[in-house]
């Protein structure tokens, strides 16, 4: 049995052992995953999907397109001389790399936030992007990974950035059709010394689609990782974001924005492990909840023994626009060390009356004023996005989800 096959078999054994999470598990207290049970298996079929005009078309980037979890070469556009390819071909064409690759499939019950979905992903994933950047190389254009689906599928990406390598990766999830389905996506990332990665994940699936994701990042010395998680679509979406600041001087910045309505349910669990001294972490999540939507944020920072001079800061702001919306938030700190500077804050509230009054006194309608302030509240997270094309795409998409957005579009474009 090949190394990869063996690793996948181990993952399957783990999945069979732990099963899918239930609400009795502390980490799944607020999210009922029982309805995903029947959607777990990926359905591979040759259903053709027209992806014309989908995604961020105006973005100047290398493209990888996955339809129902399968790499579609003729829609993609990859750079020369850099190892970016589909996991499916990577496996067969590079025997020497197989061991390295297999590492990205390893799962263990002791991994933080490990659960049945993640184990199932590792056990059954057949395709995904395999990105390997050599030391000191820089990807001259962002890599845009577009996922289009109308069925349940499993996908697993692996990103390895060599020493001082730099890249920007954007993952975009879109679904077509009305059938209930589940996307199960994992991205495993290793950043070597001094590497820099900006990673955006935009979940914009259809209203009957569910989404379960895991992002695992291991950071070596002085590497830097920036994450932007944007949750707009889907009916049930859960993301586990696990960052290990493994060596001195590593830093991460995690940003999240949920704009939800209807009966949407979005849950982000983040876990940052400060295992080495002199590491910095920043986390900033904001949610805007309308309708009967339900947002869950659980941010945990774990400072291990010996991780001196840790600097950690987390903030979480939430606005409920409707009386049926619900937010559950839990910013956790676990600290086994005295030489640290850690803080977290969470707020839940309404728009500022004074600001509303100011806008109205300038002749702006109550709805538009409310809209404008809500937008400004949400946009504060997006400020950290360095790619302006992606940012304005997200702004437009997020904005369209707010009630009365039509009145304001004109106002903003002026």
């Amino acid at each position, binding site marked *: 049995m090949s190394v990869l096959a063996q690793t996948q078999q181990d993952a399957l054994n783990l999945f069979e052992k732990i099963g899918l999470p239930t609400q009795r598990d502390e980490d799944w207290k607020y999210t009922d995953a029982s309805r995903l049970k029947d959607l777990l298996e990926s359905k591979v079929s040759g259903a053709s999907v027209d992806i014309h005009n989908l995604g961020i078309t105006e973005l100047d980037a290398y493209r990888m397109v996955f339809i129902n979890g399968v790499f579609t070469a003729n829609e993609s556009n990859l750079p020369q001389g850099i190892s970016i390819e589909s996991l499916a071909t990577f496996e067969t064409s590079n025997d020497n790399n197989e061991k390295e690759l297999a590492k990205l499939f390893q799962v263990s019950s002791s991994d933080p936030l490990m659960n049945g979905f993640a184990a199932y992903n590792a056990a059954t994933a057949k395709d995904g992007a395999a990105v390997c950047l050599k030391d000191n190389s820089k990807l001259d254009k962002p890599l845009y990974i577009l996922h289009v689906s109308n069925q349940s599928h499993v996908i697993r990406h692996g990103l390895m950035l060599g020493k001082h390598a730099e890249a920007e990766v954007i993952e975009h999830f879109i679904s077509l059709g009305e059938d209930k389905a589940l996307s199960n996506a994992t991205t495993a990332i290793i950043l070597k010394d001094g590497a820099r990665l900006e990673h955006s994940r935009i979940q914009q699936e259809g209203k009957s689609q569910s989404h379960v994701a895991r992002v695992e990042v291991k950071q070596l010395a002085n590497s830097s990782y920036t994450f932007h998680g944007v949750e707009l679509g889907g009916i049930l979406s859960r993301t586990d974001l696990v960052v290990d600041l493994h060596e001195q001087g590593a830093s991460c910045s995690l940003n999240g924005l949920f704009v939800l309505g209807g009966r949407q349910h979005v849950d982000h669990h983040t876990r940052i492990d400060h295992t080495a001294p002199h590491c910095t972490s920043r986390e900033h999540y904001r949610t805007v909840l309308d309708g009967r939507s339900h947002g869950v944020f659980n941010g945990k920072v774990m400072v291990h023994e010996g991780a001196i001079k840790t600097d950690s800061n987390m903030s979480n702001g939430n606005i*409920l626009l409707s009386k049926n919306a*619900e*937010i559950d938030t*839990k*910013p956790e700190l676990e*600290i086994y060390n005295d*030489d640290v500077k850690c*803080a*977290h804050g969470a707020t839940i509230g*309404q728009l500022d009356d004074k600001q509303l009054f100011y806008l109205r006194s300038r002749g702006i309608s109550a709805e538009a004023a409310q809209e404008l302030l809500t937008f400004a509240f949400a946009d504060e997270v997006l400020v950290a996005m360095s790619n302006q094309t992606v940012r304005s795409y997200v702004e437009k998409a997020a904005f369209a989800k707010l009630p009365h957005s039509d009145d304001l579009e004109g106002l903003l474009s002026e």
Partner: protein
Amino acid sequence: MATNEEIQKDLEKREYDAGFTTDIESDTLPPGLNEDVIRHISAKKNEPQWLLDWRLEAYRHWLTMEEPTWAAVDYTPTDYQSISYYSAPKPADSGPDSLDEVDPKLLETYDKLGIPLREQEFLAGVKNIAVDAVFDSVSVATTFKGKLKDAGVIFCPISEAVHDYPELVQKYLGSVVPQGDNFFAALNSAVFTDGSFVYIPKGVRCPMELSTYFRINALNTGQFERTLIIADEGSHVSYLEGCTAPMRDENQLHAAVVELVALDDAEIKYATVQNWYPGDENGVGGIYNFVTKRADCRGDRSKVSWTQVETGSAITWKYPSCILRGDDSVGKFFSVAVTTNCQQADTGTKMIHLGKNTKSTIISKGISAGRAQQSYRGLVRMGKNAENARNFTQCDSLLLGDKCGAHTFPYVEVKNATATLEHEATTSKIGEDQLFYCQQRGLSEEDAVNMIVNGFCKDVFDELPMEFAVEANRLMEVSLEGSVG
């Protein structure tokens, strides 16, 4: 930093000055727990049938429950068959009618602890506080009964209240913490032996501070007291409890239940100075303090505040909570917790907002030194109908030493769009710049550390009744005494 290390050393060395035992003959049940033991306790207390049935119901429920393991504490589980569920100083069958009948050795014990049981001391103007003293399983003396009775206030051991005011006890007992609420509450409901009962009638402002002093003395016993405080419409009461235990090598269990009921416009202030024996520097011995405290703000505009200074116990598992049921009701929680050596504390609060315009404030200050582990675990829940609910939470931790830990697990659940909530938490050590600044102004290093720690705890100490604020300050100072220079 030298200072921190020294403070830490000193904290480790901190001696427990309430660690003596009193050689007193006691009437103790053999270890073990079964329905007969409960019947025996009930018979000893000459309880009515309904209470025995209530206890048995709790016991049967307890048998089906498992000890909770979610708290961030690590300890050897108690063998519930190896402890004795009833211990009373002899003779205990009939309660003392006056202080002259109380065993002089007991009075000596309370004297050593600085609890002025003798009314003369009050008359001499030492303190103006009514005290109910609970020794192992029974209440031994309640002072100032007469004066309180004139005001209409009932303040007596709960075992007496069962006989004298059965309708009140039956109406309210278990109405805030039901028998099957959790593992330890169920155990307590089955075997509780004594505790204090307070009833403040309509519109009465209790003329003095009420206080209960708990002491575990006998070997191999657990203490299971139950406190019930009812503040009727428009009344006001301030209540303080204190706790100590002898130094022993084995762990003793303390599983208490405190229920507070505040009706319309009533206010209850409940303060605790918990100084149970924390075990030695290697974590041997000490009290397991597994306590369920809950207040029900049943009436509109009612107020409850919990203030706690937690310095003792090997393991603490305690979450004083407020159910803000009445409209415009207010819940407050102020806590200072100090853990040193191998102490572990998992403590915090729950604020359940159900009524409209309810407000809650949480201020929690943790100081962790040595190899101690401390967690703040809190819940703020705003229900669907809690219009305009408001919460402010601040939990800060001060770390002294690189082997200790401080953790924060705040749960926030909001189901109402008009709710406003702010939560902030920080964790750090004493800033070198702060120390430098104070020393530069001519303060010795020790004074500077004391001042900074005191400042850190000030928000909470300010909430204690005057006399106890002084006591709490002293307790903190003793902890830090001689730490520098």
